[in-house]
């Protein structure tokens, strides 16, 4: 089905019943991978991401070691059964790029200088994909890093915004992702109010971009409050 053939908005509501600037149902759980130093599961509607952090730990092979500070490695992967048409296991080009993008979204907050020669490994597995997987993964990774005791300047929260038809929307699901006029992935340091990830494709004018950035920032603050809530609940 070509883009634009599906009606994504009916009577001011999106296909899943949401208002344009409404987040999906969100669930967050800590400690889902007991072997890891820190882990979390985050669900945005039908998108489920699990993140696990190992580290800091010794980095092999030795030639990768940096004496001035540690490194951050991120691996984003989608389970073969996570998508409608089975995805062959293993990294594809999209996963490689997203791994890098997630790493750059998290790196600015981590005090890597405290861990020379070591690595902090973040693994993000998408168990079910229904749009906005990378930002869901970042929210999970952020929780996993904090619960692993990794020293950070701030948490990192993320969300997606975009445009379907003429309407600006928040938190794109799968069908919206595939049929939008534009979509933006956005990651944000909530306390310091700094942007660490910003990816966009589509067609937008500056006013729309400004508006979407406002919407994204507000949503990230809401997501941050949820992260705080789930952490305080667990460590009470």
């Amino acid at each position, binding site marked *: 089905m070509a883009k634009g053939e599906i009606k994504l908005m009916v009577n001011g509501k999106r296909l899943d019943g949401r208002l344009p600037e409404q987040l999906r149902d969100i669930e967050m759980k800590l400690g889902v991978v007991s072997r890891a130093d820190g882990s979390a599961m985050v669900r945005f509607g039908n998108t489920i991401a699990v993140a696990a952090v190992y580290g800091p730990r010794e980095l092999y092979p030795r030639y990768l070691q940096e004496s001035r500070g540690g490194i951050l490695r991120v691996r984003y992967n989608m389970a073969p*059964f996570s998508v409608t048409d089975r995805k062959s296991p293993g990294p594809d080009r999209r996963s490689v790029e997203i791994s890098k993008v997630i790493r750059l979204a998290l790196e600015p907050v981590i005090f890597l200088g405290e861990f020379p020669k070591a690595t902090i490994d973040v693994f993000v597995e998408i168990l079910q*994909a229904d749009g906005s997987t990378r930002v869901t993964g970042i929210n999970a990774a952020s929780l996993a890093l904090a619960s692993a005791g990794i020293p950070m300047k701030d948490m990192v929260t993320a969300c997606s915004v975009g445009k379907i038809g003429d309407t600006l929307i928040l938190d794109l699901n799968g069908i919206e992702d595939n049929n939008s006029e534009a979509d933006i992935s956005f990651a944000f340091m909530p306390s310091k109010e700094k942007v660490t990830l910003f990816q966009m494709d589509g067609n937008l004018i500056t006013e729309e971009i400004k508006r979407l950035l406002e919407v994204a920032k507000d949503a990230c603050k809401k997501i941050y409050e949820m992260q705080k809530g789930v952490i305080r609940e667990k460590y009470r």
Partner: protein
Amino acid sequence: MSEEYAIDLIETWRKLDGRKLDEFRKIEIEPNIIKNAEGSAHVKLGGTEVIAGVKLVLGEPFADTPNEGVLIVNAEFTPLASPDFESGPPGENAVELARIVDRGIRESKCIKLEELCIEPEKKVWCVFIDIHIINHQGNLIDAAALASVVALMNAKIPKLDGEKIIREEFERQLPVQYKPVTVTVCKVKDKFLIDPTLEDESVIQAKLSVAVRDDGKVCAMQKQGKEELNVEDLEKMIDIAIEKSEEIRKLIR
């Protein structure tokens, strides 16, 4: 590492758990956990967690079985699940696990593959079972085999409209006739135990995985570990596996 030390270690951890050598840890099974899969299951065996997803894809049959559907089992030891798992293509343990689970399902004739033929010699349903390890706390094989069978039991065949698969609608259940259960039995010194934890596995040198069908028939077996086993040991371990498989089968009836 002496055998006495190994037994001491294993019995210490079992005492902590309140578990005897022939007892399973707590088993939790959740079917249909992944919406995008045609069938799926989340299994927790103690701390070990595995998700199995079943996806149905159209394909060509194998030349020697032109009227049968195709079964492919794949396992990912995701680096998320253990500090010892590395990124990259499946290593020998992941490949071995996938093949053990495959043989248990295939040899037991779990799936009626002949009912998955759409056009003889040309078009059949290919059943992909993808095993995703989420947390490794020992005994991955038993957990993976269980998750796979439960996923198959709940799998539905999507509607076919000519060449097109309409995944939102379903035609029928995947035809499953037998439910093989795999039990791995371990031997340390002169003692036998089941459901090894991670700590157990670090000291156990001889294991036998046995896939048992509903009617008590043994369909597949695999010895693992560096140590040798006597024939009497093998027989005893097979008996234990058959006996214990019933406990698991009760959970998936």
